[in-house]
């Protein structure tokens, strides 16, 4: 693959917290421009540690992070430019929200980019509208629900207009409807050209949503590629402490029972139903 296609790349990353065992052990990851990448892994597999490397919060003991093919710059100025391009949204919104009012908090990032108050206010309005939370504009941060805080934290990053948006468990703790709305927002951002990297435990979400998945295990990538390939690989997944998503597991069983064509790898429930009903119709016409 040509280097220019990758917006973000991690090469042979090694990291350890204090003297504990390695949190990252020779991790390689490539994020193509405009892709939706899902990072999957059990608790303690190094997902969050990796995310903290992607915006320069942590510096690898060995190996390096490349941004647009260039080695990342850890100087003060370099980090600022880096964090403008790569925005990280943390799992717990309280790790990020500090201002007492929503509009103030969202304006923090844009002001750090050196924008004027007027330009920053414009960014705030734009980010709040993009996340459907314009109504929360003047609310005190501590009076928000968990789901609302999660959205405000995301808005604070979106307002910086990053090229790559990195999210740690964005749907964790949200109700089904809240997760769906969040994914719809991510889809809008993706269509607008944002590259998305998402760490999650939700296998079904990764299967339906991602263009590429990477399975992390013990601080390294155990497997990566198209979701249909990687997430159907049961030995790989169980070795990583994960399980197969429902849809490919079901499709595999159906194929084994001859109920589904051998080449059918449905990505969505609708696709599965379509292939199934095609099979039923073919069988009926063969009989008749």
């Amino acid at each position: 693959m040509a280097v220019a296609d990758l917006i973000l790349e991690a090469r042979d990353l090694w990291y350890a917290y204090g003297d504990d065992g390695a949190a990252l052990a020779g991790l390689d990851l490539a994020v193509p421009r405009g892709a939706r990448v899902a990072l999957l892994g059990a608790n303690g597999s190094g997902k969050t540690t990796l995310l903290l490397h992607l915006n320069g919060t942590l510096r690898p003991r060995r190996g390096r992070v490349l941004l647009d093919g260039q080695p990342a710059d850890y100087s003060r100025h370099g980090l600022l430019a880096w964090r403008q391009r790569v925005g990280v949204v943390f799992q717990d919104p309280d790790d990020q929200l500090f201002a007492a009012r929503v509009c103030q908090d969202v304006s923090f990032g844009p002001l750090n980019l050196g924008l004027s108050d007027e330009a920053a206010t414009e960014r705030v309005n734009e980010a709040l509208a993009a996340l459907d939370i314009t109504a929360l504009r003047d609310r005190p941060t501590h009076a928000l629900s968990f789901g609302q805080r999660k959205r405000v934290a995301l808005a604070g990053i979106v307002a910086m207009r990053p090229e790559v948006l990195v999210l740690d468990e964005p749907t964790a703790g949200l109700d089904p409807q809240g997760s769906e709305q969040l994914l719809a927002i991510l889809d809008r951002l993706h269509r607008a050209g944002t590259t998305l990297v998402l760490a999650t435990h939700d296998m079904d979400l990764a299967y339906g949503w991602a263009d590429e998945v990477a399975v992390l295990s013990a601080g390294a990538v155990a497997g990566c590629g198209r979701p249909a390939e990687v997430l159907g690989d049961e030995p790989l997944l169980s070795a990583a402490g994960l399980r197969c998503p429902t849809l490919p597991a079901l499709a595999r069983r159906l194929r084994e029972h001859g109920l589904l064509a051998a080449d059918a790898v449905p990505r969505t429930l609708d696709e599965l139903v379509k292939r199934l009903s095609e099979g039923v119709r073919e069988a009926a016409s063969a009989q008749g």
Partner: protein
Amino acid sequence: MQALDACAHTNRWCRRDPLEKLALGGGLLVLSLLLPPWPAGPLIATVMMAAALAGARVPPRLYLRTVCVPAGFALAGVVTMLVSVSFDGGGLRLQPAPGGVLLAARVLLRCGASVSCLVFLALTTPLVDLVPTLRRLGCPLVVSELMLLIYRLLFVLSETLAAMTRAQAARLGFVDRRACWRSTGLGVAALLTRALSLARRLDIGLQARGFSGDLRVVDSRPPVDRRARAGIALLLAAVTAVSLLGAWRWPWPT
């Protein structure tokens, strides 16, 4: 604390220019410290109470609850002024302090007036508005940032404490006195480590957003209401005039 904050965000004057409220509450606070406590004390307390209850429509029950705490402190403090303690002949002697009642009354009047000003500010002006206003008036950036961060973390930590206490209670952590002490000790220790880790994670979170040493945010300033400002200036002048006139006409007994 939550009720107080909620009221500051919902009262009838919550959208008014914080500078007006600061001028009114802060101005009267300064006057309560400068003017002779009689008759300025009762006058200021009355004005502030009327502003809070009739003007900002603060619920009277909440007002009373808020005033109770500092009033309790003031009363407890004033008791010591009423008596004088002396050792003579090897024994401890308690006796009414000469002029103690008058002194205690003066302190109470001044104290009541100042407290009513602070309570007015606390119940009508969200801290979020107050701090940028203090900034505009020249308060150093470091101080105002610290105030806002402490304010934000107070809520996060009080939520954590509430969750921890509930979790301890669910495992019978408060079943008897011994358990109570133990649970409280463990809770406070855990809160400290939580606070430290929260601070560390917040630092990482802020750095991810380009934090480089100052917590600048955009503030929206309400339009200037000249009439309100003139009214406040007039009120402050009137309180001063009436107080000075009253102090001359009905002097404090000595």
